[in-house]
């Protein structure tokens, strides 16, 4: 295992060394000590290595991730796993705003709570939050799946396209064009697969979740709204 101590090494050095790794590297396990909330840690990784961040991370940790596994053993700042393409990002504490924003693939697991705008404009990522999510989450979500074991704040799924949202707790309010939908067998199956992938085999019963998605009334311009412009 490679240890990088950020009280002695710069974050740019850390990221450069991670970017220089070749796909056949033997150095597949990295541990980053004393992160102290620094920004842009382990961003832009594109090979299947595991990076453990031993503490709190700042903004955009594991942004643009492909194939790598990034584990944050504390809280994550704004935009964790932003624009992730594939791989896995696991936040053991809470995540700040815009977790998983615009992410196109991979799995983001948050053990604590995620604050406002979790999954904003998500485009295929799978997000599992064991706690609750803040207001305006899944805003303009386009595809992918979000599972929340706790509650959702105001305006969930505002202007949502085809993403699927599963919430076990209460939803404070739904955003424009987001509606509750029937949970069918294929959804229960997908939910089970995702919960298992997030390490929640015995902790969550798929029968307890409600599903939310797009009513699809905002897809096309409606001539009755012409006067509004």
């Amino acid at each position, binding site marked *: 295992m490679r240890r990088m101590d950020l009280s002695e090494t710069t974050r740019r050095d850390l990221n450069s060394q991670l970017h220089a790794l070749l796909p056949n590297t033997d150095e597949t396990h990295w541990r980053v000590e004393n992160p*102290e*909330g*620094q920004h842009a840690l382990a961003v832009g990784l594109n090979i299947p290595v595991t990076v453990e961040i031993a503490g*709190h991370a*700042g*903004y955009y940790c594991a942004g643009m991730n492909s194939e790598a596994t990034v584990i944050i053993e*504390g*809280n994550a*700042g*704004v935009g964790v796993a932003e624009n992730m393409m594939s791989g896995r990002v696991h936040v053991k*504490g*809470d995540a*700040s*705003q815009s977790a998983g924003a615009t992410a196109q693939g991979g799995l983001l697991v948050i053990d604590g709570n995620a*604050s*406002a705008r979790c999954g904003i404009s998500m485009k295929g990522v799978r997000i599992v939050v064991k706690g609750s999510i*803040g*207001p305006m989450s899944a805003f303009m979500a386009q595809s992918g799946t979000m599972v929340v074991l706790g509650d959702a704040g105001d305006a969930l799924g505002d202007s949502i396209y085809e993403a699927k949202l599963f919430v076990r707790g209460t939803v404070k309010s739904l955003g424009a064009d987001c509606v509750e939908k029937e949970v069918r067998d294929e959804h229960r199956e997908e939910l089970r697969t995702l919960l298992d992938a997030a390490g929640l085999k015995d902790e969550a019963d798929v029968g307890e979740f409600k599903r939310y998605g797009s009513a699809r009334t905002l897809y096309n311009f409606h001539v009755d709204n012409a006067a509004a412009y």
Partner: protein
Amino acid sequence: MCGIVGLFLKDQSLESQLGALLANMLEIMTDRGPDSAGFAIYGSGDVGYRKLTVRGGNLDGIANALGAGIAGIVRDSHLVLSMPAEEEDSVRGWLATERPDLVVIGAGQRIELYKEVGLPAQVTKRFDLAAMAGTHGIGHTRMATESAVTTDGAHPFSTGPDQCLVHNGSLSNHRSLRRMLEPMGMRFATDNDSEVAAAYLTWRLQEGSTLAEALEGSLNDLDGFFTFVVGTESGFAVLRDPISCKPAVIAETDQYVAFGSEYRALVNLPRINRACVFEPEPARVYAWERN
């Protein structure tokens, strides 16, 4: 962008370190606000006495000129005058007549307030913040976006006794609020939007609201983006607007409550590893009072 920090001590044994801890927090926030910096410290002060923080040049000799019973400490471009409370009006009157070039930027039983243009590390050094003691303090590093880089535009703003406010964000209805507050007796020293927010809270407190109620009111009456950290003689409060674009992190232990725009600002606080670290929710008032 701006950086804001705050530290409210619960444990008296940390009071001698308040300035040093706050100075470090401010310096870490330099890349959020390299233009200017400022801070308010709630230090010593007896009931029945007042402190005025005065800013300007040629400060030596003012306390002597004011006569017996008035003490003064000069720190760089700031002078803190201490006096029996009943002398406050005559001291203000003397300053207005004899030294109209000076501005009173803070007043109260315990508050002292300092701000200057420059890098936060330079500003904290000029006033020797690291040597200051107190129960709580609030600081700000400014990256000016709406108005010029001047000392007047630096935070904190103090518009009432022992009150101060720092603000990250921008208000869009500050002109109309100012017109509403002026007939209520609020006076403004600058054109800054954050000063209007401070005066709004001062007005609500004067009307009998608690600090928490005053902040609740601001959710209805202020339009714009804000994260506020507010200090009073005995209190400390945090509020974010409902959209909550401006960042905020709180860390709480049995020794202190600390606020930072980012977690980085808090990393050198005592036993931060054992603190409860959380992001304050939008549109929710967080307030603490000293026992």
